[in-house]
């Protein structure tokens, strides 16, 4: 992993994951991964299906406890036994499967698990709606359906709700799993702008995506995973999309790829 070290900026990382290992019944989904993330940085995490991207991020979000390995947040050893503990470290996740409760409305989803209360602990629905209107005004000004169950919303609107969920709670570290997969072109552009906006605000973002253009467009660094390992972590400016694609498909760093393999790719 020496190459990863070279690509690292100097400041203390926001997140550092060391030698993470996860296996499911003998299959090494994540086999000894080191990765880090800094303030105001977007690290793209790419790889084919089953490369281990989502599994790795589940460890960081607390949804999965690794077999071994350590996670450091701002230099401190973090215990991430469940999503609640991860949220306490400012780690928020936007899941590929859009973890929304379909039968609840947008404010209920945004505040799920962290409801605002009033008086003797009763839910303060108006305050939650107000806060949701506030954050939605920033993310998606066209959004108006604050009282309907999210099941009746479009894909883009649902994605807005999912992102609002994370943004509302001043996340420091954001994990976005395929944030634009279900969106049309206009909505994709909107979400991309939003991701840049969040980066400007100093968040560290892990961006998981199949869409190499998404990643190349937004990321500062790109980590490529292949069969549970990190092939390489590179600065975006140092590589072109072809080199990244080569790593994704062949699982080899650009220098190690033979001319025949490259030819086979084309």
């Amino acid at each position: 992993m020496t190459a990863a070290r070279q690509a690292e900026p100097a400041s203390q990382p926001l997140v550092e994951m060391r030698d993470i290992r996860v296996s499911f019944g003998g299959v090494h989904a994540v086999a000894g991964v080191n990765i880090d993330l800094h303030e105001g940085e977007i690290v793209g995490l790419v790889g084919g299906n089953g490369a281990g991207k989502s599994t790795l991020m589940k460890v960081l979000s607390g949804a999965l406890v690794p077999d071994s390995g350590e996670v450091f947040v701002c230099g401190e050893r973090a215990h991430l036994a469940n999503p609640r503990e991860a949220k306490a470290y400012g780690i928020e996740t936007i899941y590929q499967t859009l973890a929304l409760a379909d039968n609840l409305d947008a404010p209920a989803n945004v505040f799920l698990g962290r409801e605002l209360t009033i008086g003797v602990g009763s839910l303060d629905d108006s305050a939650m709606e107000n806060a949701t209107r506030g954050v939605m005004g920033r993310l998606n000004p066209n959004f108006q359906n604050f009282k309907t169950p999210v099941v009746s919303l479009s894909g883009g609107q649902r994605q807005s709700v999912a992102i609002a969920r994370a943004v509302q709670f001043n996340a420091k570290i954001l994990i976005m799993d395929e944030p634009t997969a279900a969106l049309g072109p206009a909505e994709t552009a909107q979400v991309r702008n939003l991701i840049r906006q969040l980066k400007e605000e100093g968040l560290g973002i892990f961006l998981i995506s199949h869409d190499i253009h998404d990643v190349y467009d937004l990321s500062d660094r790109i980590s490529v995973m292949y069969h549970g390992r990190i092939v390489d972590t590179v600065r975006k400016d140092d590589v072109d999309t072809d080199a990244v694609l080569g790593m994704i498909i062949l699982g080899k760093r650009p220098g190690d790829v033979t001319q025949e393999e490259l030819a086979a790719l084309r």
Partner: protein
Amino acid sequence: MANVADTAPVPGETRTTTSAARLREALSATEIDVRLFGMLVALAVILIGFQLLDSGFFSPANMVTLAVQAIPVAILATGMVLVIVSRNIDLSVGSLTGIIAMTYAMLMTDWLPNVLGMGVDFPFRWLIALLIGIVVGAAFGALQGFIIAYIGVPSFVVTLGGLLSIRGAIWYFSNGAAVTRLDPTFQLLGGGGRGSIGELLTWAIGALGCAFVVFALWNGRRQRRRFGFPVRPVWAEVAIGALGCAAMLGLAAFANGNYLPPGLATQYAQEHGIVEPPGGLKVPAGFPLPVILLIAVTVVMTWIATRRRFGRYVYAYGGNPDAAELAGINTRRTILLTFVVMGILAALSAAVVAARLNGATLDIGNSYELYVIAAAVVGGTSFAGGIGTIPGAVLGAFVMQALSYGLSFIGVNSPGQNVVAGIVLILAVAFDTWNRRRAAR
């Protein structure tokens, strides 16, 4: 649930001007839960239908009897909503009601006086018995809930086991005998002439209900104003307030149209130094205590379901268990608590049944689980999870009870009533499914 008042009309959209559409617009402006409204209409249709078949049906005395009969199931149905919404089922509620009823009977006839030395004159014996019953219910619920939530045995299996074993355990409490003669104060929970709150208190409850409706409307409007959200048109607020008040006061007036039975009326006349007129004194009985209990349970359970974190988590889990888990909700604790709530409600339900019977038999609560589930489902609770309301389930219990009471009133026997109840259950859910699919399109 549809809140159309919030969605601004799309510019350029052609506004429909048919009268049906205008009616729909007006209805949606009031933000009335259409489903609940439909249930009320169904209940009214059933009552009017039986009244047309037999003009003696819709009398205050009959309606009070009908209500008191529906109450044990209605109380349980409010809890069953939470259980079904969170994708579980509780088949043990009938047996649980039975064992707690027997507990009350044994407490008041044997255990309290003979074991704990609390004789007939001991103060608040009825309350002590009730509290012990609630603890027993909560404990059974917690045990079943623990096995379901933390060990992961399906609720169908756990509560089926509960249904069998708890029913069997009742036998050992009393060695197979029926136990009678409860505390006289406890008996009031069963309603009847003595267990009714009288004319004045009934009017007071009606007025309180009216005030509550007005307050709820005003508070809701104030909350939305606080943040400058769109509010209902004033005419809609006034219409709902007036309807709500009329309903509350109308119910009070109706309950006061039910008079004490002659024996009690004579006693009342003697106590108040009134000379009984020929043909007996007409003393309004007012709401029976179990009705007050049901109102309290419905209000509290609705509050828990809609205004408390616990309720929100129950619905979130029902809508998407993974989302609830990922949101950091302690889903196991939430599920366990739904069964604890169910156990507490079984204790309240058992109190009403035992008090009415003035004792307990081995078969109290037999097949209640079926009526309770039917009430919840007729009331709009979906087995897919995440959908269902407390007032809907209470109305569901009343619809089912009104049907069987009405059928027996016109002379249909018990098997015939079951045939109709079963068919109505299926039709109600079929209509609901069709209606939801239509609405989703």
